[in-house]
């Protein structure tokens, strides 16, 4: 046999083998196929979300394909066009827009195919409600409200002990980000009527480095007034803020009491008492809940609840070792497994 013929035979066999094991072919044996559009796995929270959604999809017998974008709506729009142009439509689309407003066109295009769309992570707005069959994800308001209640509790304890000073510095998401208004309003509602008073709100950006930079500038601005409490819109931002406060000579837990949310910061800060507490928002839960909602919809043709939130319990130094939550896959998870920052031992 000539080398040419051998090569053709090899290509033919490889092609058949490849087709046999392709996702499209194996989809016929599964409970359904899902395509998820979301952010990059390189981001800690989304990385865990992707692990959760893939593991739960496998557990429930779904085939899933995940398209990651680098927090870029134009890139996500292109991915949507590629999937639609390929012509092989899944049974359900999962839609985590990079920018809910700018991505409305792509959502509309997905819905026009007739394939049901589940929106995740960012609450539906008036414009996109018509294109989705439901929402699964975190509750920014509950998370921020719980943080507010925790800070109230800490303030009350401080007052009872004869402490003075209740000025609050907020380290926020960018003010243009959708979750900002929901979070800050819920937090303000929670602390309303207490001695706590927000004297500064800085939105340097996401992450620890920006938390540090924003806090450092605000310390320079508010030092004379006094900073006694810090609210971090998420723990990564707060972790940077705590570093800046410590560098400026504040003793965390004594001079300043810090409360965060999301549980994507640093476990050791809570253990050491430098951070009073946080409210959990688990990416693992979010991925699992999305698959649960897809399963419910495919089985019954509708969702029992249009809006479905992941749980947001408070976590403090006292409860860190005892808090455990059942996942939507039925397993029991510890806080370490559910959080997404520097939480691994």
């Amino acid at each position: 046999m000539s080398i040419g013929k051998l090569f053709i035979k090899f290509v033919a066999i490889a092609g058949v083998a490849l087709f046999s094991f392709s996702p499209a072919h194996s989809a016929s044996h599964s409970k359904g196929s899902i395509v998820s559009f979301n952010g990059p796995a390189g981001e800690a929270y989304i990385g865990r979300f992707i692990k959760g959604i893939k593991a739960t999809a496998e557990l429930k017998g779904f085939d899933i394909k995940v398209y990651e974008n680098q927090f870029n709506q134009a890139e996500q729009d292109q991915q949507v066009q590629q999937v639609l142009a390929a012509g092989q439509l899944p049974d359900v689309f999962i839609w985590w827009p990079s920018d809910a407003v700018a991505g409305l066109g792509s959502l509309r295009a997905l819905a026009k195919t007739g394939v049901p769309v589940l929106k995740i992570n960012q609450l539906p707005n008036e414009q996109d409600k018509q294109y989705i069959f439901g929402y699964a994800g975190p509750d920014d308001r509950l998370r921020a409200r719980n943080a507010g209640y925790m800070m109230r509790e800490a303030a009350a304890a401080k007052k009872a002990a004869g402490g003075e000073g209740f000025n609050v510095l907020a380290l926020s998401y960018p003010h243009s980000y959708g979750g900002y208004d929901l979070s800050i309003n819920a937090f303000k509602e929670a602390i309303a009527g207490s001695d706590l008073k927000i004297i500064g709100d800085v939105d340097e950006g996401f992450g620890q480095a920006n938390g540090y930079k924003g806090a450092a500038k605000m310390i320079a601005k508010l030092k004379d007034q006094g900073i006694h409490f810090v609210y971090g819109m998420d723990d990564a931002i707060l972790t940077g803020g705590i570093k800046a406060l410590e560098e400026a000579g504040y003793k965390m837990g004594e001079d300043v009491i810090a409360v965060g949310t999301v549980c994507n910061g640093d476990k050791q800060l809570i253990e050491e008492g430098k951070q009073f507490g946080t409210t959990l928002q688990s990416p693992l839960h979010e991925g699992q809940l999305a698959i649960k909602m897809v399963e419910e919809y495919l089985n019954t043709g509708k969702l029992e609840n249009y809006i479905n939130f992941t749980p947001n319990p408070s976590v403090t130094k006292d409860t860190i070792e005892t808090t455990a939550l059942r996942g939507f896959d039925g397993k029991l998870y510890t806080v370490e497994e559910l959080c997404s920052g520097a939480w691994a031992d």
Partner: protein
Amino acid sequence: MSPISEPINQLPKPSILEKLIQRHSKLAITLLAIFIVVFVYGMVTAPNFLTLFNFKTIIRDAALVGIMAIGLTFVTLSGNFFLLSMKETAALCIIAFATGMASGWGFELSFLFTMVFALIAGISQGALIGIGGNPIVVTLGAAGVLYGLGAYWSDNLVVSYRRPHGAEWLGTGSFLGLPNITVAFILIAISAELLLRKTSFGRQVYLIGANRAAGRATGHENFWMAIKVCTIASVCSAFVAIAFSAQVSSAQVNYFSSEFGSSGDMTIMVIATVMVGGNSIMGGFGSTLRSSLGAVFISTVDNMMVLHGFNSGPRVFAVGLMIVFSIIVFAILRRGSRSEE
């Protein structure tokens, strides 16, 4: 005394302002004047701007981007444009350092381990550029490889290590009231400037950057120069990665993608810093001091805006505007200087 020399001696000596106007175009002077007025007004009216504490905050804020910009300046001055892989080098290096720390190797060994990656990244990119590769294309490709390695190595997860640890002195320690990262920035800025001004290596950087053919004629090939400057830039990136990890006791591959400034991308911030300093993109003109001051300038504008109570949108706009503005002013000033020559 001759009759001709007498009236010349009677001419009044021009003032500094007059000299400035004579040497540079009126447009440049007007732009500069507007800029100075706006800048000084912003400084004076910003609450608590003119305090020692805030001054330290500004320098500390500029430190990490500034150190990377100093490294990149060597590449730019040598006529090799930019390394588009600055943040990706840092991404791989921060994973390497945190992995070492988490494995209990201690600061020194983790530092050396990280620097091995920086050297490999710098030397390989420099060699490819040195044999004639386009710096933009080479470093764009390298960026993907370096980031991909970091993501694969860390499985996209946060690598953390518990305090107390041997790197805390660098991340959160201070010397004479200044954070050690600020001290490192100042020392690196001084060393880099001395390296450029006082050594034959520094003179070669300028020579090859200004005229590659002349450099070749005098026996100075860009091949070795590209390797040296890319290595310096990579080592600076690695140092920033180590300092940042030491501060937060953790690492993640995307720390330098999303965490530095409202504009997000650290490589772009570093390039902007080099340009704001007035360094020539074509090489041969500029200094690391200019880049250091560029970093402090950007940090100052941002700081002033925060103290005035602006949120991120107007701040990004203002910083962007200032960058464009200063690049235009430097370009006009340089053109004026050249036409005078």
